[in-house]
């Protein structure tokens, strides 16, 4: 497969995962805002940091402006419409490599979002619109699995998806645990506390799955254990690292590249640490530096992937 094609498929997938994440996060926060508006500043602050975007000016219409900024603002490269446009552009470059069903689904989703405006969704429930975006992306993933050959290109799509999810979830966990646990004085408002933790789970689409394992008895350690180390939840970091490693192993097997050792080792190390680490040790040390380290490992894997398959130096490729 051409390196350019692999690159496009990988980024198509990352942008879609990013758009879905943004839609879910915005949806959860707008929803919670309805009940405890007095903590708005804290919430928005957390949302900005979770998405790694600069804070907007606070004010009465902040919810409206945040919604506009994260959905339809084409000047914001992290907005839903920008992510979908980037995903579509990547797909367009490799239209012959993906199935027509995939192209049509992505094209339809993009055109629908592009035709909508914040004025139109604000009064008619932003939730309906945001749910539509999530559905559209999940439908695309289903169509991809059902219609595309599960060969090299499909594995690159999976690497992109799980790479993005690992990185987004790690950031989200970092922001929440920092602001909820490391605040000096203990929380006096138990209901706010509870809602914040539920918000974190919902932001990861993992509330129900969590309850199935731990019941609705919400404890920060359990949430950390679930989102970091659970082997079965598709939203946990451990699961994502496992999927990423599997996909990378398949790519190595298909391409028979001889110098793929580095990317294999890096992916294997991330997976192994999440396989065997203990939650009490993680929380006993610094949760922040643990998550920072995961981010660092993701960047390393990403770089190694590009070094081996996509932007490898020519002299290396000629001698290997």
């Amino acid at each position: 497969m051409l390196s350019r094609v692999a690159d496009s498929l990988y980024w198509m997938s990352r942008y879609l995962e990013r758009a879905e994440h943004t839609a879910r996060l915005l949806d959860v926060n707008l929803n919670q805002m309805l009940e405890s508006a007095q903590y708005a500043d804290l919430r928005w602050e957390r949302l900005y940091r979770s998405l790694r975007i600069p804070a907007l000016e606070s004010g009465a219409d902040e919810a409206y402006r945040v919604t506009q900024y994260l959905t339809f603002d084409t000047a914001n490269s992290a907005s839903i419409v920008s992510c979908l446009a980037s995903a579509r552009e990547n797909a367009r470059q490799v239209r012959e490599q993906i199935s027509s069903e995939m192209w049509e689904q992505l094209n339809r989703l993009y055109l629908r979002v592009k035709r909508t405006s914040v004025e139109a969704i604000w009064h008619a429930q932003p939730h309906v619109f945001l749910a539509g975006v999530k559905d559209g992306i999940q439908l695309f993933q289903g169509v991809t699995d059902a219609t595309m050959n599960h060969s090299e290109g499909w594995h690159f799509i999976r690497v992109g998806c799980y790479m993005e999810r690992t990185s987004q979830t790690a950031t989200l966990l970092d922001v929440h645990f920092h602001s909820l646990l490391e605040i000096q004085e203990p929380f006096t408002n138990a209901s706010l506390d509870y809602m914040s933790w539920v918000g974190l789970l919902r932001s990861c689409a993992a509330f129900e799955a969590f309850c199935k394992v731990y019941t609705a008895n919400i404890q920060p350690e359990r949430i950390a254990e679930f989102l970091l180390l659970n082997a079965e939840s598709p939203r946990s970091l451990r699961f994502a690292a496992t999927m990423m490693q599997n996909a990378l192993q398949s790519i190595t097997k298909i391409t028979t590249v001889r110098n793929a050792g580095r990317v294999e080792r890096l992916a294997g190390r991330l997976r192994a640490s999440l396989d065997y680490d203990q939650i009490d040790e993680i929380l006993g040390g610094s949760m922040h530096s643990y998550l920072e380290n995961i981010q660092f490992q993701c960047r390393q894997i990403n770089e190694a992937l590009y070094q081996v398959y996509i932007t490898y130096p020519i002299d290396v490729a000629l001698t290997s």
Partner: protein
Amino acid sequence: MIRSDRSDTSEQPTLPPPFSNYHLDIAYDEMFREGGMARLPYQELYQRLLELSMDTLHQRQQAADVAFLNQGITFTVYGGDEGTERIWPYDLLPRIITSGEWEVIERGLTQRITALNLFLKDIYHEGRILNEGIVPRALVYSCKHYRREMQGLNVPHDTYISIVGSDLIRLPDGAFAVLEDNLRVPSGVSYMLANRQVMKNVFPALFGSYDVRPIDHYGQALLNTLASLAPLMRPDPTIVLLTPGVYNSAYFEHTFLARQMGIELVEGRDLLVHDNIVYMRTTGGLRRVDVIYRRIDDDFLDPLAFRHDSTLGVPGLLNAYRAGNVSLANAIGTGIADDKALYAYVPAIIRYYLGEEAILPNVETYLLTDDSHLHYTLEHLDELVVKAVGESGGYGMLIGPYSTAVQREEFRRAILANPRNYIAQPTLALSRAPCFLDGQIEPRHVDLRPFILNGDRVTIVPGGLTRVALRRGSLIVNSSQGGGSKDTWVLQHE
């Protein structure tokens, strides 16, 4: 001077519906003889059209349109809104060519391509035809597609032009003539193949009742032609199709052909040259490339050799080509042989290299570097067609009878500023074929572009792209200018 749209109403035969609006004129009619009798090969189609209801035809037309839409068979129109994608209008009714007519076309094009290939070899080597004064030296060296870099270079099997699409028209006497040769990167073959697929789906019975020669093997024939160019010592060559990318008007065709042949569709940035060897960058490492079917013009192929601002090409490609490590189809510099001024010399070129008379005639052409021709042309701008010599796709053209005084003045000035850049031809009555338009069947002007492959031998798939000027009275068949297309049937037997 022939005017095609002035019908002589005095002897107009009246035809039954749905042909009530079908008027014959001086142009050759593909379906009817004088007096309104259907020609022999069209008789069955004619009968069928008399019997079918217009609703049925409408339904079939819609089915055909939907088929094109779903497959995304589109082209891009330049100018106007950024990259507007359009479906190329498809006319439901086939254009029929008898085996006898095809036999002449096939022989004529084979002769023409063979001679033009010899001409290119001669021009880029000793230049005998120039030394003997058959073709003026100045004409060749002033051509903007002449490439000095090709001088003295030997190309594999001396094949300069591997893929050709020549435009034929039918004159009022029924004979085919060559209007243009396209020897650089001719397009349209995907529409020929797609039209046939759609035709077989919407008119299976009619199609089955005619004995039509198949064209589906074009992809394989193209692949074989490209493989025949592989450098020696490369028994299992890697062949790729080089596209300018998604913004090119023929991008659909590039993806279509790559899929038909099962070869990689690459862009310039996927290729690199190291030690005069071309590689493509794959996830499995660098892979050597042996043959490039390039759909990029010479100018953009290699920024080191040609246009420096081109980002579509591959730096170093020309050197790899000169070293014989990679083959290009078509070769660089073939555009001199389809220069519209050089076109006038093709019959002489055929005579010179093959000692034969041209089987397919040329259209009368005025070279404006000749004073008497120039004078005549400027006097008769309102009757002639003027074309810029290096343009294609219907751009840079003046059609005298349909032009305004302002346009004629513009061309007069442009011609006087650079006479070498223009030629003039009489306004010709292209033949007309029946088309299904707005619930009626009416005649429209058509041309024919067969696709010629020149590998170990010349192969022409029996068919071609019949382009239709859908606007009433219009003579311009180009897709960018309101043209459409038809399926073209070459019959097995007379």
